């Protein structure tokens, strides 16, 4: 057993390692490029004004006039045009391998090598291989990659949550003027402080009281509020979408026909299966009577329906998992190793 395992891995390491070394030395893999596009504010404004002018010409040709909204937007752009002279910015976007050269085969000067994205590409590739190494057995590389994924995901969610929840939603509503002056310049000028947001602020502070050395019980009050409110909101949604509507969805004709096609056998069988399946599964979960006789037989039919449902779910799950490995292989083969994509590169 051990010998066969060693053989598998020796083979994989030799083939994979040799190939990797060859491609790396050759300089034809594992590089990331970006496209730099420089924009000029004056050009951008002029284009937008020109676009509205063209639309106006089209409207005039139809015997109509430009909408007031667009005319106002054009006026605003024209007013701001002198103030943006000299302002430029560069947009950096990912570039595919195929974009390295222009259509006539010359190197595209706008596409440049990116160190930061190349390092990211290698981290992603090595991380993928480290996670896949769990198939061999638990090991330090897997554990390291797992810890990095969890840590990075948690940090990312926290930062995004803090920015959008605390800064934009809470402080943006409570102290909009201060936020506009500092970190949220895009806040509408007309936005005024909404004092109702003091309530979530106080509840949040009470929630954090749990960390204080004394009075930890205070955090139970906001928690009770959140649980109660969430349960109430969800109860209504479930009752409507998953109870009342679902009952309505199950009330259907068992014999389906129309004037053109007459009896629609397939549709009818489908509806009968749905109704019988729902009733049989409900009987299976009905424990007030012993599952004997008619009740037992119906419950048994219910089990069959449940098993078929689980089987379908398992089949879909398998398909999903294969998609995931397929995606990772696609990343390793094409984005990292730069193998030719059949039908695209070759």
């Amino acid at each position, binding site marked *: 057993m051990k010998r066969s395992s060693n053989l598998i891995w020796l083979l994989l390491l030799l083939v994979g390692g040799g190939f990797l070394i060859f491609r790396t030395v050759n300089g034809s893999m594992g590089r990331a490029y970006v496209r730099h596009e420089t924009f000029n504010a004056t050009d951008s404004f002029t284009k937008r004004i020109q676009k509205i002018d063209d639309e106006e010409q089209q409207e005039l040709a139809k015997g109509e006039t430009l909408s007031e909204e667009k005319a106002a937007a054009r006026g605003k752009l024209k007013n701001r045009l002198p103030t943006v002279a000299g302002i430029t910015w560069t947009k950096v976007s990912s570039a595919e391998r195929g974009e390295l050269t222009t259509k006539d085969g010359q190197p595209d000067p706008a596409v440049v090598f990116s160190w930061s994205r190349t390092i990211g590409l290698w981290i992603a590739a090595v991380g993928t291989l480290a996670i896949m190494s769990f198939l061999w057995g638990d090991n330090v590389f897997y554990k390291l990659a797992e810890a990095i994924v969890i840590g990075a995901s948690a940090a990312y969610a926290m930062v995004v949550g803090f920015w*959008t*929840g605390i800064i934009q939603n809470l402080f943006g509503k409570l102290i909009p003027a201060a936020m506009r002056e500092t970190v949220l310049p895009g806040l509408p000028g007309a936005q005024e402080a909404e004092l109702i947001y003091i309530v979530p602020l106080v509840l949040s502070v009470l929630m954090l009281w749990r960390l204080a050395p004394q009075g930890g019980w205070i955090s139970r009050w906001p928690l009770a509020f959140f649980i109660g409110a969430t349960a109430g909101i969800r109860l209504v*949604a479930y009752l409507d979408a998953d109870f009342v509507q679902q009952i309505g969805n199950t009330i259907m004709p068992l014999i389906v026909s129309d004037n053109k096609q007459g009896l629609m056998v397939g549709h009818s069988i489908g509806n009968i299966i749905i109704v019988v399946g729902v009733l049989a599964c409900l009987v299976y979960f009905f424990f007030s009577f012993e599952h004997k006789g008619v009740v037992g037989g119906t419950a048994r039919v219910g089990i069959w329906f449940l098993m078929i449902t689980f089987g379908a779910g398992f089949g879909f799950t398998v398909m999903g998992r294969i998609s995931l490995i397929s995606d990772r292989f696609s990343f390793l083969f094409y984005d990292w190793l730069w193998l030719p994509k059949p039908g695209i590169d070759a």
Partner: protein
Amino acid sequence: MSDITPRDSAHDPPSDMPPAEDGSETGFDFRNLDRRWIFLAMGLAVAIPMLMGVVFPEEPSEEVLDVFAAVEGLEDGSSVLMAYDYDPASKGELEPMAAAFVRHCAQKKHKLYFITLWPAAVPMLQKNIAILNREYPEYTYGEDYVNLGFRPGSEGVIKVVVTDLKKLYANDVDGTDLNELPLTRNLKNIQSMDLIINVSAGTPGAKEWVQYAATPFDIKMVAGVTGVGYTPLVPYVPKQLAGMLGAIKAAAEYEEAVLLEYPHLRENPSTQEGLRKMGPQLVAHMLIIGLIVVGNVIFFTDRKRGVS
């Protein structure tokens, strides 16, 4: 070594295995097969068709055509909420259908409002918007599409935006005031959307959009979901969900439906990502079916021979 590592009892032959007739050690036997050979076989079953570019023809099913019709049936320039709730962990499964939705909507010149309930989905939104920038340069930000980005609160966000969008979204993802963008200046809430397209990898996702937006406010909605999430959501079709795409198979069929309607898109290989992923799927599924058959044959043979 933990219990879940491959090097545990699963590799060891059962103690009640019958010895070989000549008394020697048993040779190759599926019962003793190291599971890593199966991993290797599965890896090859996925990698080889992928490297060979094996693509099988797909025919859109009735369920997929329902989704297609929901997008195609809208008047050109309709408002569509693109609620993309998936992260990099499920992009392999959902990205092809998300991209197909974007291209289909762009072909119909629909006005697109991108939004997400998942913090890690923001780069996914940007990736889909990059399709518009690259392939549909006539699409102008703020006029034809807008990226609302993420807000924390899960289904709470839906509850708010369905009645008062600007209460939560005063700005777009870059901090631009929504009142300054022509597309969102007069937008009150998402009830004015002609369609919600949700690509969902879990919770919050399609279920929540159905519960808090589509059902109570009667907004037309279609969804594309992972394989794991498909079966629990089927009861919503067709009344609460006009249609639903389940996993990569439906994504490939949807791509085919779009390509049949807009054949010029075939020139762009990116429009066939889902179709290309079906080659490895087929071979891998054949392998799994083969292994299930072999496993069952061994099980029933052993049972007949009286091996427990």
